């Protein structure tokens, strides 16, 4: 657990962002647990709604509004509504309650625990996520770049020209735009980028050759085919009912 403590401590910064992060994370995990332990089926559905909504809160906090709204719309607005529909239509008496036997608890703990361990291990193995000061490194880099440019401007005499035509040299401009892109990479605010990324054109990465980032075309296609199958299945089910009615 020391990893977690070390990661948050050196951020040593209690600002609104961390405060809200803790609130939302607590909400999400708390209601997920509440859902596990509750027995009334409709309450479980309601707790699921709140935990998924707060999960979208976490995503909003990372600054990617589009994905946060997507989570809100698809998961909370779509899937859970479907779930509640299912719950309401099939619950025989009004309040079906499900009691989980002791044996199931043990099995669940084993499976759940192993999955949890796997996830946390994977999360903390990522070097960049260890510390939250990647922004500070970035800012330091920019500071250094500023000083170099100013120094080089003063040294090679560009400083004597008047302000407008003190242009950056070519490679200075390239490094600057790289820096800009890496800063901008932090927040895929511009939905245009996501749209194009989905069709395979990664605009926020400096260049495909350098980083090997290709677009998300393949997963995008897989998901759409998957949804198409689901759609046809639903249509078929409803269709069956209607045919026998004639």
């Amino acid at each position, binding site marked *: 657990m020391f990893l977690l403590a070390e990661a948050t401590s050196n951020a040593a910064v209690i600002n609104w962002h961390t405060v809200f992060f803790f609130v939302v994370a607590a909400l999400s995990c708390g209601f997920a647990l509440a859902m596990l332990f509750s027995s009334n089926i409709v309450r479980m559905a309601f707790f699921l709604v709140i935990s998924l909504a707060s999960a979208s809160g976490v995503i909003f906090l990372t600054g990617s509004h589009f994905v946060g709204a997507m989570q809100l719309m698809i998961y909370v607005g779509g899937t859970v509504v479907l779930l509640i529909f299912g719950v309401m239509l099939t619950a025989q008496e009004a309040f079906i309650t499900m009691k989980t036997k002791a044996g199931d608890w043990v099995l669940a703990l084993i499976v759940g625990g192993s999955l949890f361990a796997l996830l946390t291990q994977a999360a903390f193995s990522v070097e960049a996520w260890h510390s939250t000061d990647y922004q500070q490194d970035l800012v330091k880099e920019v500071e250094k770049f500023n000083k170099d440019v100013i120094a080089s401007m003063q040294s090679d005499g560009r400083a004597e020209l008047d302000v407008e035509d003190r242009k950056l040299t070519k490679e200075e401009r390239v490094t600057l735009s790289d820096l800009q892109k890496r800063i901008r990479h932090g927040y895929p605010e511009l939905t245009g980028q996501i749209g194009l990324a989905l069709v395979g054109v990664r605009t926020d990465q400096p260049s495909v050759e350098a980083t090997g980032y290709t677009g998300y075309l393949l997963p995008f296609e897989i998901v759409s085919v998957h949804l198409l199958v689901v759609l046809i299945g639903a249509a078929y*089910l409803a269709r*069956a*009912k209607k045919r*026998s*009615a004639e």
Partner: protein
Amino acid sequence: MATAENSQTVEFDVRTDEMLVNMGPQHPSTHGVLRLVLRTDGEVISETTPHIGYLHRCAEKIGENLTPRQWVPYTDRMDYLAGMNMNLGWSLTVEKLMKYDLPDKARHTRVIISELNRIASHLVGMGTYGLDLGSFSPFLYAFREREKILDLLEDVCGARLTYSYITPGGMTADLPKGWTKKCNEFLDQFLPVIADYHALLTTNAIFVKRTANVGVMSAEMAIDYGCSGPVLRGSGVDYDLRRDGEERYTSLYDGYAFEVIVEKDGHYPKDHDYPNVPTDAVLGDSWHRFYVRMLEVIQSMDIIRQGIDFYESATGDWGTPMKISTKLPKGEAYLETECPRGQMGFYIVSDGTGPIPFRVRARSSCFSNLSVAPELCKGILIADIPSIIGSLDVVMGEIDR
């Protein structure tokens, strides 16, 4: 339209349990205390059983202890929205038993008053039907006009709902001075208002969608179930007691020019300046029953105008109401009159021993009209129930007597 065939044989793959749902008796849309038990499967209704009797006062038993004149107030309370027509029916039955004929002036007064009450009753039917389907405004327009009619009737007999004005042997009083002028004024300002009702309801796209092709009843089924009045004529049966009824009743309307409102080969009489039938309205559906009522309001207005002319030119006295103690001759008499909701029949049996009849029977029009509801409400959606029951325009006081 929803599945029309018999819903019993419908097998659903996904077995949803049938739900017994109770609509009424305190349900706002069922026109008083009617209780409908619906067996529903999701939204589709597989069976409807109406339960009546919540307003049963056994008026017929009381009739065996009262003289006909004393029983007149009981007839008001049967179809409380058309009290005058009820009184007229009972008075004519007693006069038929007594073989008592009326002077002309009384005859015309009775026509004017009963037609005026028909307009008031149809206005209520139209207003509550709009309310059932969700639009609130026509209800208030209808009641605004009805207030004016009630004021006119109040001038005549002092009461607004339970009149007991038309009694065996004539009326309790003559029409007050200048009343006919006020009545004419009302009729003149009423015609343009009818156009509003048509705009608000009859030709309203959503109203047509909710009523056209809903609760379709064929002519044979209507006759078989004993429906009468606008419900019968809405299915295209050309039958109106004011023209085809008993001689004693049709003699009231001698000299009056009026046509029976029924759809013959595709169009209604005098429907030139009224909205024509929408394309997807089938003869015998809720829309036609509603449309017949709206046209009958115009028909009644014409009859009243002619009645007022006849009344002013008629001579002689206005008939003397029967004394309470007059002995009833031995025998029995049954007579049906065309009330706003259908044919209201009265049957009196007397053994000639005194003024009190031996047996009194009131045949209710809505009783038979409602008996067709279970047949019409098979395999429809819940939202269609008010549309069908509203189009039958039932009044529980008359059904339960």
